[in-house]
């Protein structure tokens, strides 16, 4: 009984949270569309987003490409299809693995970063101070960060894809004596706009989700310094969860388009 009540309470809280988040998103669109625009801060935040996650994205991308290829090789050899390696790995990286892995890495880095930054600004009254200074803190802090994440994530995904492909080609070069040139030529031949466009659109949404949840959690931080840690932590959890939901929807939608 107590457990059932607890579950009902948790479910209720979950939907209230989703409602709050949607309201926050609406506020973002409203504020993003009206002047004044904080271009300088947007640039600064975009640089920060890229700079913060570049190394991490590169490392994971490289390893994923490497591992994916190493593990697929034996199976492909068994079927005598090892020459299909670039097509297979290339397509799975570009269509799914690259965007999802990059987004997950970034949610750990960017969403938690936003949560902690805005959370500590809230707790130390910096957000209040901004408001009193006549600068709209939502525009200055939130809109710029969400936009930065939305715009930068696709770039990070492309970067991560390239590194992953490089990792994959390295394995092919060492184990199968396939030249880098041949490898990349095969990959690019195999890729169509049907692979690239949905992946890119998806990446924008991933970036938006990461920026939104990070800012939402940070901006709503409760009183006290403990709130900052909670904000950073829950931002990552929520962002990762939402990423998979968005991914599911994206795969579903693009599948419909393939059928057409």
């Amino acid at each position, binding site marked *: 009984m107590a457990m059932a009540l607890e579950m009902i309470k948790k479910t209720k809280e979950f939907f209230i949270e989703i409602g709050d988040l949607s309201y926050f998103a609406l506020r973002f669109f409203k504020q993003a569309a009206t002047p004044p625009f904080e271009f300088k801060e947007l640039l600064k935040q975009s640089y920060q987003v890229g700079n913060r996650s570049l190394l991490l994205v590169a490392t994971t991308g490289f390893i994923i490409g490497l591992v994916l290829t190493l593990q697929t090789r034996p199976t492909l050899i068994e079927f005598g299809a090892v020459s299909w390696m670039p097509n297979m790995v290339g397509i799975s990286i570009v269509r799914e693995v690259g965007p999802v892995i990059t987004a997950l890495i970034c949610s750990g880095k960017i969403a938690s970063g936003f949560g902690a*930054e805005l959370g*500590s*600004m809230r707790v*130390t*009254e*910096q957000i*209040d*101070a*901004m*408001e*009193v*200074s*006549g*600068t709209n803190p939502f525009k200055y802090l939130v809109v710029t960060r969400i936009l930065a994440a939305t715009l930068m994530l696709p770039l990070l995904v492309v970067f991560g894809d390239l590194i992953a492909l490089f990792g994959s080609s390295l394995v092919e070069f060492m184990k199968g004596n396939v030249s880098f040139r041949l490898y990349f030529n095969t990959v690019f031949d195999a890729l169509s706009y049907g692979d690239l466009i949905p992946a890119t659109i998806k990446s924008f949404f991933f970036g938006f989700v990461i920026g939104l949840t990070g800012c939402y959690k940070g901006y709503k931080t409760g009183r006290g310094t403990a709130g900052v840690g909670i904000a950073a932590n829950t931002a990552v959890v929520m962002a990762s969860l939402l990423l998979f939901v968005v991914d599911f929807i994206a795969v579903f939608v693009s599948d419909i388009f393939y059928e057409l």
Partner: protein
Amino acid sequence: MDVKENIAPLQKENTSEEIVVRIQDLYKSFGDNKVLNGFNMVLRKGENLVVMGKSGSGKSVMIKCLVGLMVPDRGVVEVLGEDIARLNQVDLDELRSDIGFLFQGSALYDSMTVRENLEFPMRRHRKKFEGVTDTLPLVQEALENVGLAHTMDLMPEELSGGMKRRIALARAIILKPKLILYDEPTSGLDPITAKEIIGLMRSIQKKYGTSALIITHDVDCARVISERMILLVDGINYAEGAYQELVTSSDPKINAFFKK
């Protein structure tokens, strides 16, 4: 003029220019936590008014209602002749440019240098600075007022708590406000640094002729700086008078403030 008179039930004879802040019947609660229960206050031009209250008595809540950072449940807040609740965002921002706010924990923007911190209030309150193209002299003047001209390019994290408070004070006065709100200007500082801050507050008042509302639970601070005091107890203005009057009172609730 005409509409306002009909709606706002304020006594006409008191609306003279001399009154800088008028709070009437202020109520604010958070859930079941009734913080303010009909608080009244008047601050006259050029006056130093101290509001004293225990920790958690709602001093910060009251001062936040004053600048529109919090919306009261009930009551009228008039600042510099304007009813806060009736102002739109633009007018509210313009009014705020006449108010300096020193936050309880200094609230310096920790991603900006001292200079950028001081320039921040000027970026939107442009109206006050028509024709000013170079903000540097203003920043310098404000920093010299607090004796920290050499810290211009430092980051807040490089400053001690006392220096931060002084920079925050410089930021609060950079717009040459008519009214300064101090939220616990001496909290968290050692007695000597606290004395320095109080000295600065007095010299600023002398130099610019500002009115000041000082919120504190520091008896020494109150004694030195106040011309009049209000004790905030149980959400109301429990007692009012000069320091000497209150300190000799026999009421136990008043006495509790001055017992060491």
